[in-house]
């Protein structure tokens, strides 16, 4: 249904569970993809699995210079960046009273500030082309909060405010800016939870199960498509009914 033939997408955190699924979905719809992440081996593996139209561009998103360079690297590999998916994210959980400045700063830097820098870096090309899609993966905890995740929730809520502001600025140029907010998804990040935590979480999800990465990817695919051209400044919640906001 969604055809991205001829579009070029940069996906950060593409070695992770959701990032790999997003890259796979965009690629299957015909897009070329630049896979970004810190670990090269899993990115190369994914690129090999996808075959043609897949490029690896490693970058440490905690490094401002590397982030500035990333849109240029991706454009050099693919010709342009028409779709940016800000997916990379880290957690440094701690109780608020114990949270260090470093734990706070790292999460804000990688999850929020790098997304700002990447969006700024790809805008020129998108505005000239009069077409662009920026999709940021936020989280349900950006809306609801979560104990132990003051830094992560702040960064994820920050992405929503950033996206809405940018959406205003560039809507008239054919560039849309949206967020996808996953609930609990089966990924390495949630695999770290113990059984008791998991069953407590499942009790709060009307769907009675965790989500799958491809269910997040489908939401990103929609927002990246030509058909979603009238959707901007929105957050699409994909959480099994866990929070109906």
């Amino acid at each position: 249904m969604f055809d991205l033939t001829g579009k070029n997408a940069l996906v950060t955190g593409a070695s992770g569970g959701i990032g790999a699924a997003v890259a796979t979905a965009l690629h299957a719809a015909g897009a070329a993809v630049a896979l970004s992440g810190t670990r090269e081996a899993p990115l190369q593996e994914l690129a090999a699995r996808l075959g043609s139209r897949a490029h690896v561009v490693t970058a440490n998103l905690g490094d401002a210079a590397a982030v500035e360079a990333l849109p240029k690297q991706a454009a050099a590999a693919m010709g342009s960046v028409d779709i940016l998916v800000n997916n990379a994210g880290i957690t440094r959980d701690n109780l608020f009273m114990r949270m260090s400045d470093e734990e706070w700063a790292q999460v804000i830097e990688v999850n929020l500030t790098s997304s700002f820098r990447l969006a700024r870096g790809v805008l020129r090309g998108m505005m000239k082309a009069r077409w662009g899609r920026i999709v940021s993966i936020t989280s349900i905890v950006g809306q609801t909060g979560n104990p132990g995740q003051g830094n992560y929730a702040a960064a994820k809520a920050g992405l929503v405010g950033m996206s809405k502001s940018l959406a205003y600025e560039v809507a008239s140029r054919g560039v849309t800016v949206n967020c996808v907010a996953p609930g609990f998804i089966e990924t390495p990040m949630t695999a770290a939870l113990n059984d008791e935590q998991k069953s407590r979480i499942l009790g709060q999800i009307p769907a009675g199960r965790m989500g799958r990465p491809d269910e997040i990817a489908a939401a990103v695919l929609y927002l990246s498509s030509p058909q979603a051209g009238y959707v901007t400044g929105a957050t699409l919640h994909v959480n099994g009914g866990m929070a109906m906001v």
Partner: protein
Amino acid sequence: MSDIADRVKKIVVEHLGVEEDKVVETASFIDDLGADSLDTVELVMAFEEEFGIEIPDDAAETIQTFGDAVKFIQQATA
């Protein structure tokens, strides 16, 4: 009129969709030619590309009129 002024005028006419005779030296992009703030950013981007120059943000802020743009580019390419 100089070659630079002609090229700048062409960009302004195309980008803002205004009549050529409205683009006079004292014409303000925003007040007289109907540009919004994003248009002015895009005009600067277009000038940079056309003339192969870098226009830093603080310099871009001083470019308010067609005449300002021509003068700046003449100096930058001199």
